[in-house]
Structure formats: structure tokens, C-alpha cells
């Protein structure tokens, strides 16, 4: 079911929706074309699925296209992705050539139709070459933590990025030295999507039962792709430290994405680490599992996002929205979403995570208080309505370079 602006108004209030409509009026018929590398899986595709519809309802013609690429291309872009996150990767000239060749192929088959073209992440960044032909305004939206990138790779991507009109990063920490304006736009969740909407208790019970999870015992859950940067092995280590003294179960659930070729290898490592422990539930879920993910989080006692690097980590906001205390790695967008000691805890190691899990398992009131705080934090800062507003403002900002105050009346 597609939610309407009136549905969102019930959550965020009339003032927020009125403001969106006013800004949409000022966008004045200009269209926005989003381009990324995958239609399913991962936070970017999830956001676009709903955001495009919201902008359309606001009267901003908004579309979404996906570039094409073979396995070799996605192996290269995964390595580039990791390297931009700061993970050491060997990037050869041959790999960069694969990137360039796939970009060339996409340049031949893609249609650029938007007045403003919003390119998401490094995979389609090379499409900026279109600019010479079609003009338009071009925005590069980086969803990755590029605070400590492998410089060889950043310098490669930078040659494309600096040709854009502006770049968008999720956090100030990710800002770069660039000759173009840079905007901060945090990611967001859709409170009315299947992944986040309210669920009846029996639906939650049903899902827990389906996967053999005991709803009467404490449940720790991490929802994320099977990716080393999400540190699933660190989560298992933290769980084992807790289990020496306290009872709990661990759920590691996530999907895979076509542009993530590493997933299978990491899943095998997780299975090996979980070994014969029946209280560790490793669930590889298909892309259509949003309702089940919703139920798993709602049925949890504590939610984890113990990433080592993180572009944003929307699972944190998703859990906070369900009033769960969240323990997260002190990296990337997680630092923005967890107010340490208020909505959850930021940690730096499996030992630190274990310590906080123990503390929260012992203190129901603390869990409830953090859950309530987290819900308010998300409501004010990380809902899709704010994201739609920021994208429209970014479109308008391109018309007013260098002005700190823009009159729109």
C-alpha cells in the first residue's frame, strides 16, 4: 500500500507537511532523476523506493533508474566501496578499466531525463560524462563513510565527483576538500513501510516462532547484510561474553544485494562462528522480508549495529523507531543516530558491547527509557519527510550558489 502525505501528517504533524508543500511549490516543476546501482537490497534502494513516491505526491516529478553491470563490475565496485570505507584493498589498473568500460556501456544505454540528476554512490559516478552532452544539474550523493578513505581510490572517484554541481554526504565527518559545494543530508526511514509500521503482537510471535526463537527469553538482534564491515563475528563474540553469566539468544538476520558479491563468504564465516549453538539464529532473508524484519526487531530486547565502518546504518533508526535500545559501533552515521547513554550506547569493541548488553539486560527501566528517547530522536531527525525536504532544498540550492540566505517568497 502506498502511504499518502496525509498518513505522514498523522506522525509528523501538519506544520511539517505544509512546509514540504511550500518548498515543493518553489521547486516549480523541475524534475529529479535518481540513478543508483541496485533496485533491491541495502539502504539506498529502500530509501528511493519510498522517497520517489513522496516527492511525486508533492508535485516534484521524480524518477529512479538503475545502471547495468556484470559480476566483474560489481566485484570492482565492492572493492572500491570497501576502500572508500578505509578497508585496505588492492585496486589494479585492470579493475579501474572494468569500471570505466561499464560506465561507457551505461552512457550508451541510459536516458538522462531529469532537470536535476541525483547520482547515488560511486558505482554510477562516471555518468557525469553525460554532462557535456545534455547539460542539466548534477548532484553526487555519497552514502558511504569516506572519512578515512584509501586515497588511491578516493582520488580516482574524485576526478568524477569534482565535475558535479554539488556533493551530498550523510555526516560532516565525511566532508572532503572539493572545489564544489557540499551539503549534509542524513539518511532516513519510512515510518509507514512494511519494515517500520506498527505490528500486532500475534504477528511478532508468529515470526519468532517460525524461526525457533523463544519470545520468553531475552533476544539480541543485529539486522544487516552479511558484510565484514558490519562485524557479525564481533557481535557473536560479544554475545558469548554475555552468555557466560546471563541468558540470551542472538539473531543475526539480513539479506543480500546483487551489488554485494562478498555476502556468501561472510555468511559462511558467520555459520562457522555460530557453530552448534542453538541460541544463535543466522537468518538469510530474501528481499521481500520487510515484515519479518519488522517483527524480529519488535520482538527483540536489544538491537545491535556493531559496525566497524558505516555509511549511515539505518537499522539504528529503524530499531529506535520501535522503541528499542540500540548498541552500535561508534562509527559513521551510527554516531549521529545513537545519543550515547540516552537512546543507546556507542561501543568500540566486542568487550564494550558485551558490557552494555549485560547492563541493559539487567535494567528494564533503562531499556524502556532509552527506547522512548530513541523514538523521539528519530521522529525529529530521521524520518523520510525531512529527507524529502532536504533533497528539494538541494535542488533549490543549485540555483543560488554562494548565497547563505535565499529569499523564496
Amino acid at each position: 500500500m502506498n502511504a499518502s502525505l496525509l498518513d505522514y501528517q498523522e506522525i509528523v504533524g501538519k506544520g511539517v507537511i505544509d512546509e514540504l508543500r511550500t518548498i515543493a511549490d518553489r521547486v516549480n516543476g523541475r524534475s529529479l532523476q535518481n540513478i543508483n546501482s541496485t533496485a533491491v537490497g541495502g539502504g539506498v534502494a529502500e530509501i528511493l523506493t519510498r522517497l520517489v513516491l513522496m516527492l511525486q505526491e508533492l508535485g516534484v516529478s521524480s524518477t529512479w533508474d538503475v545502471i547495468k553491470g556484470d559480476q566483474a563490475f560489481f566485484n570492482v565496485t565492492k572493492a572500491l566501496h570497501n576502500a572508500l570505507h578505509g578497508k585496505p584493498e588492492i585496486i589494479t589498473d585492470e579493475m579501474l578499466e572494468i569500471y570505466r568500460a561499464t560506465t561507457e556501456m551505461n552512457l550508451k544505454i541510459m536516458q538522462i531525463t531529469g532537470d536535476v540528476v541525483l547520482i547515488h554512490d560511486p558505482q554510477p559516478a562516471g555518468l557525469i560524462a553525460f554532462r557535456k552532452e545534455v547539460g542539466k544539474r548534477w548532484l553526487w550523493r555519497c552514502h558511504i563513510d569516506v572519512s578515512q578513505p584509501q586515497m588511491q581510490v578516493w582520488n580516482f572517484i574524485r576526478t568524477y565527483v569534482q565535475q558535479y554541481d554539488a556533493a551530498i554526504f550523510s555526516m560532516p565527518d565525511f566532508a572532503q576538500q572539493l572545489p564544489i559545494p557540499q551539503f549534509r543530508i542524513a539518511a532516513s526511514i519510512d515510518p509507514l513501510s512494511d519494515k517500520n509500521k506498527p505490528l500486532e503482537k500475534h504477528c511478532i510471535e508468529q515470526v519468532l516462532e517460525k524461526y525457533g526463537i523463544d519470545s520468553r527469553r531475552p533476544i539480541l538482534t543485529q539486522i544487516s547484510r552479511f558484510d565484514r564491515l558490519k562485524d557479525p563475528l564481533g557481535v557473536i563474540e560479544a554475545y558469548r561474553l554475555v552468555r557466560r553469566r546471563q541468558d540470551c539468544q542472538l539473531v543475526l538476520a539480513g539479506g543480500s544485494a546483487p551489488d554485494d558479491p562478498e555476502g556468501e563468504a561472510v555468511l559462511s564465516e558467520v555459520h562457522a562462528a555460530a557453530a552448534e549453538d542453538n541460541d544463535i539464529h543466522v537468518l538469510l532473508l530474501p528481499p521481500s522480508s520487510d515484515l519479518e524484519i519488522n517483527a524480529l526487531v519488535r520482538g527483540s530486547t536489544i538491537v545491535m549495529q556493531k559496525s566497524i565502518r558505516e555509511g549511515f546504518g539505518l537499522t539504528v533508526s529503524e530499531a529506535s523507531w520501535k522503541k528499542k535500545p540500540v548498541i552500535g559501533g561508534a562509527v559513521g552515521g551510527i554516531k549521529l543516530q545513537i545519543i550515547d547513554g540516552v537512546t543507546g550506547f556507542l561501543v568500540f569493541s566486542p568487550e564494550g558491547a558485551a558490557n552494555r548488553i549485560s547492563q541493559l539486560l539487567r535494567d528494564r527501566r533503562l531499556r524502556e527509557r532509552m527506547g522512548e528517547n530513541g523514538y523521539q530522536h528519530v521522529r525529529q531527525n530521521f524520518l523520510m519527510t525531512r529527507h524529502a525536504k532536504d533533497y528539494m532544498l538541494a535542488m533549490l540550492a543549485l540555483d543560488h550558489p554562494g548565497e547563505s540566505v535565499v529569499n523564496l517568497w
Partner: protein
Amino acid sequence: MSVEPFVFRTEARLVVLTGRRARNLPELLDQLTQVSGSCIFYHTHYLYLVQHFVKPRFYNDFANWASHSLQEERLAEQLAAIDLLAITSIRELRESIIATLRKHLERSPNMNRECRTGDEFHFCEAKSFIMTAGPAARDPAEFFEQIPKVSNACIHFHCFEARLRLEKTTNDFSQWLTAAGESSIAKKIDKLNPYAMTLDELKMSIAKLGRGHLRK
């Protein structure tokens, strides 16, 4: 007295990243001499606009960073204590922050202490988009009727943005009420300290002053 109607404005903000950062106090000082006025305004004012379910210890980002990332508590308190109401321009505000920082560095033995990697101060600024908010007020009665209905962003614009960033000597409300021949209520509003209360409280205080004034 005949006066042009008061047009309520509101603002939406897009955060602009400068790419500038500081890891220690000398770097912070160096950057403070170079960043835009908009950047200084952003780091001393935007927290007032955020709805807080947990109030921040300081509303000044420089103070929060000095405390949280460098454990320079004394400096943090001094930066937060800068009297924003007594300051009438961004230039003056920048000089005041720099003077506080310089004084601290002169007597601090740990002036080169660096923050943890990932805790750097990142300089931002805001691009403000100003829009009309609701119907214009033709007289003080209409004006005070509108006040409780306007958004916090509207109050922020007319009381903070206009006074300091746009360098007006008072807030927009007092300026218009004075022009409308209502200088006594204009002065009372001017005397409210917007930095000592939340935007909700400020709005209610103005509305209450208005109700009292109109009953006379």
C-alpha cells in the same frame, strides 16, 4: 498609525559542509579566523532550533566540542557564557569567541592536546531558505493573534536570524511594533532573552505579553 503589514517569514535550512576541520585548539583558532560568518552563526545558533527531548549541556558547538572531545571544561563554560544578547553582529561574535580561545591558550599547558580520531570539529554553515508563513498582520491585534500559530522556525528567523545574521539592532517584532506606534510592548519583547529559553517558551512569552497589552 499606518504601517505596512507585518509579513511572517519562516526558514528551512540546508547544512553546507565546508570540509574544514580541527583536531586541537590551535587548529580551531586558526579556522575560526578563516570561516564564513554564516559558519560562526550556525555553530552558535542552530541548536536553539532543534527540538530537544534532552536539552544539550551547551547550545554552542565550540563549547560542546571543547568539553566532549578535548575535556577542556573551563574553556567550554567560558565559550558557552559569551553573552549573545549583548552582541550585535557576527563579526563581534567571532572576535569574542577568538578572544576567549586565545586567553585560554595563553594559560593552558595542554594547548596541543588532540581529540580522538573521529571526534574532530567539522565546520558547517547553513543555507537558509526564507519563505512566507501564514497571513500578514495588519495591526498589533492581528499580529498577536498570529503569534501562537507560527512555527518555531518563524520565531527563530525573526528573533535570532534577523537580529544577528542580518545585523538589525533589535528583533523584527519589536521593530515593526515600534513603527506601528506600540513602543512600550516593543521594548518589553526586546527585553526578553531568547537565549535563556526554548523557542516554545519564547513564543508563549511574546503571546502572553501581547494578550496583556491588548487587554489594556
